[in-house]
C-alpha cells in the first residue's frame, strides 16, 4: 500500500512538474496569438479574453502597495489612460496576481473599493490569486503592460513608459509606450515599439 502511494505520488509530481514546465514554455512573444484565459472581476463577473475578439484589450498588472504603481496612481496617470481609452471602446483590465497574504492581494470587495477610492476606470479588476494568468503571460512587475489587438494577437509587452523610477515627476518626461501603441492601433497602424523593459516591484506570486 505504502509503495503504491509512493509511486502515485511520484507520477503526480512528475505530471505537475511537466505541467509547470509547459506553462513556463508558453510565454508568448509579440506577434503571436495571446493565450486565452478566464478570470472573475471584483464584482464576480467572469471575463474570457476570447469573448473580446474584435476589441483591443489592455492588461495592466496591479499591486497598490508597490511604489511604482503608486507613482502612476497617486499622480492620476494610470486613471487618465484608463478613462481616455475605455471611452474609445478599448477593454482595459487591471490584473491582481498577488497571492493571499502577500502585498497587493485584495478580496473582491477591497478591489472594488480601491477602484472607487482611486477614481480608476478600468473595464474591470481581474483577480488572479493563484497567479495562473500572470505566469501564463510572464508578468514580472507591477505595473507590467500587455496589449492585444482586435485579432487577438499580442502586440505590446513591456513597461508603461521609458523611465524606470518610482518618482511621479518623471511621468511628464517619459515616453508612454502604452499610449503610443494604443494611438497607433486606433489609427489602424502597426505598433512601432512592441516590447520594452517592464519596471517595478516583482509580482507577489504565491
Amino acid at each position, binding site marked *: 500500500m505504502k509503495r503504491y502511494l509512493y509511486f502515485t505520488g511520484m507520477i503526480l509530481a512528475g505530471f505537475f512538474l511537466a505541467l509547470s514546465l509547459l506553462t*513556463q514554455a508558453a*510565454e*508568448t*512573444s*509579440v506577434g503571436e496569438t495571446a493565450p486565452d484565459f478566464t478570470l472573475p472581476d471584483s464584482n464576480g463577473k467572469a471575463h474570457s479574453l476570447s469573448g473580446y475578439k474584435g476589441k483591443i484589450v489592455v492588461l495592466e498588472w496591479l499591486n497598490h*502597495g*508597490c*511604489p*511604482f504603481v503608486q507613482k502612476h496612481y497617486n499622480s492620476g496617470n494610470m486613471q487618465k489612460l484608463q478613462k481616455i481609452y475605455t471611452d474609445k471602446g478599448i477593454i482595459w483590465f487591471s490584473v491582481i496576481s498577488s497571492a493571499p497574504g*502577500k*502585498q497587493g492581494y485584495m478580496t473582491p470587495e477591497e478591489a472594488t473599493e480601491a477602484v472607487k477610492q482611486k477614481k480608476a476606470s478600468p473595464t474591470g479588476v481581474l483577480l488572479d490569486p493563484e497567479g495562473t494568468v500572470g*505566469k501564463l503571460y*510572464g*508578468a*514580472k*512587475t507591477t505595473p507590467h503592460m500587455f496589449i492585444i489587438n482586435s485579432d487577438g494577437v499580442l502586440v505590446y*509587452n*513591456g513597461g508603461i513608459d521609458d523611465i*524606470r*523610477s*518610482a*518618482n511621479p515627476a518623471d511621468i511628464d518626461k517619459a515616453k508612454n509606450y502604452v499610449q503610443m501603441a494604443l494611438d497607433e492601433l486606433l489609427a489602424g497602424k502597426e505598433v512601432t515599439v*512592441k*516590447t*520594452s*523593459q*517592464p*519596471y*517595478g*516591484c*516583482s*509580482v*507577489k*506570486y504565491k
Partner: protein
Amino acid sequence: MEFLGGCYSSRRQVENMKTGFCVKKAFQNVHNTIHSVFLIALSIVFIILNGCSSSVHVEAELVSEVRSIQPGRAFSVAVRLKMDEHWHTYWRNPGDSGMPTKITWQLPDGFTVGEVRWPCPQKFGEPPVVSFGYAGEAFLITEVIAEENTKPGTEVKITAIVEWLACKESCIPGSAELSLSLPVKDIIPDLDMRWAGRFVETRMNLPRAFPDWKIRASAGSSNILIQVDPPPWFKDELTGLAFFPEQEGMIDYSKTQSLKKSGNGYVLEIRRSVLSVSLPQRLHGILFSPKGWSQAGQERAFYIDLPLHQQE
C-alpha cells in the same frame, strides 16, 4: 524571497564592520511624536556631521579609501550601502524587477568622476521573477581625479546624491545626499584604515578580463550560446557557470542556463527573453564561475564584452 545564489556565495559576514556614527533605523518603530521629532533632529545632526544617512532598511555612507588627496591624482571613493537582513538593493541591470542604485555626483570644478565599478551581483527571487543585486554590505567604488591646480592646504567637498530601491518581499525607495570632505596635500596619501580593507576586498571581486580563456558568443532565434575554451593549465571540470547580462531585456532570467561540453571546451546555452525582438551587436556582462578563472582558483567574475554573431 528566496536566495538563489550567484556571486559571493561564500560572502564574508560584514555585520560587525565599524559603521561610524550612522543612526540606524532612525525612522523605524517610532511610537510617539516627541520621540520621532527627537530622533529626526538627532539623525539630521549626525547626517551633517558624518555624511552618513540611514533610512528604512538601508544605511548609506560616502567613504574614501585615502585620508587626503593630491592635485591631479586619482583616488577612490565608495558609496557604502548596508542593507538590513533579508533586504537587498540592485545591480546596474536589476533583472526582472527593481531599480538600479543611481549616484549623482557634485564635485569641485575640474574634478572628474568615472563610472561606478559594480561588483558581481547575487540573484534574488524565484521564477518567473528573478532579480540581481546586493544583500549585506555593498561598496560601489568610483574613481575621482582631482583637478591639477587644486591647492594643497585646502579642503575639497565631494557629494553623492544616492537613490536606491530596497526590497525584501515588498519594496521601499530610498535616497540620501552624502558628503565627504578631504584635505588636499602634496604627499602620497595615507590609506584610511577604517575602509581600506573593504576597498581591497571589493576590488578583488570586481569583474575583470581573463585573456587566456577564449570566449565567443552567438545568437539564434531563441537562444544565446557562449562558447568557453579553457587555457591549457586548466585541468578541472567547469561547473556552475552563470551569465549575468548588463543589457536589459535580452535573456530570460528565469530559465536554467545549461552548460555542456563542446569540442575542447564548453558551451553555455541561455534562453532569450520574449522581450528581445532585435539583438544587440555585442554581448556584455559577467560570466561567473564558482571555481574561479585564475590559476589560484580565485577571481570568479569574468567581465566579457564580445561581438554577438548570428548562428548559422
